[in-house]
């Protein structure tokens, strides 16, 4: 079928989904350094736990801090992941609506038609 002319409401919805997706991805990327830091803290705590003469006070402080950091990271990251999954569902629903309106359209046709709009948004984000 090739490139098609899609109704504006569908384009607007796809742009909303894309923007929110990129915002979520940016938020997730901002947490990357915390995620790596926690990985290092886990390794460091492992090493501390394996020494012969364990400093219990230090160990307990480390574990408590690690536990709080992981809880905080969970609270920060899990809602973003839920948002991204919801956006994936929104995208599927949108595709179904477009299919209803244009029964012969394929995913490739849709991508062809929407990519100029989406590329405009993508260039403002640095997440890829």
């Amino acid at each position, binding site marked *: 079928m090739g490139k098609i002319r899609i109704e504006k409401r569908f384009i607007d919805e796809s742009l909303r989904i894309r923007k929110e997706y990129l915002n979520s991805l940016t938020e997730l990327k901002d947490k990357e350094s915390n*995620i790596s830091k926690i990985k290092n803290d*886990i390794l460091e705590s492992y090493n501390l*736990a394996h020494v012969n003469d364990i400093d219990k006070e230090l160990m307990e402080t480390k*574990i408590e801090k*690690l536990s709080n950091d*992981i809880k905080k990271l*969970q609270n920060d990251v899990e809602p973003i*992941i839920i948002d991204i999954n919801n956006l994936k569902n929104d995208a599927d629903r949108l595709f179904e609506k477009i299919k209803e309106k244009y029964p012969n359209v394929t995913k490739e046709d849709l991508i062809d038609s929407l990519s100029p709009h989406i590329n405009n948004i993508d260039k403002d984000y640095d997440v890829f």
Partner: protein
Amino acid sequence: MKIKTKLIEFEKENRNGRIYPKELMNSVMEQLKSKNSPLYGELGQDNNSFDISLKNISHTIENIYVDDNSIYGNIRILDTPKGKIVKELLNNSQSIGIASRGMGSINSDGTVSDNFKLLTFDLVADPSFDIYISRNTKEKYIDKIQELKETWEKLELKKDS
């Protein structure tokens, strides 16, 4: 929480006056290896029951092997209600015993007959062999870090999916 431990001893009289002859060891190993994995065990033991009660499962038994006159393996404590009790007890420096559960006849000299069928290993307060699991300070710290690591890994996996 995973604990490497002895599970059962052969050629040694236990508190019930029973002796598991060494000849039984290979048969017990074969029985254990042929079971559907994972092999579940319960907290507490109902000697009259030959079924695993799902609500009482606290652990799995993995990586079973023979050394000398004993069978060893890893007890993995699960996050089930009964598993959580086990973890809490171990974290409070309690030792918990391991008891085999099986069925078979006993010969007049106290030896267990070769028709013995081993079902599982349960965690109990008063085991017939002196086999207990416990956690020292270092192990408790490592368990805690391991738990945190697993939480972190789950999060990392979710993020990447």
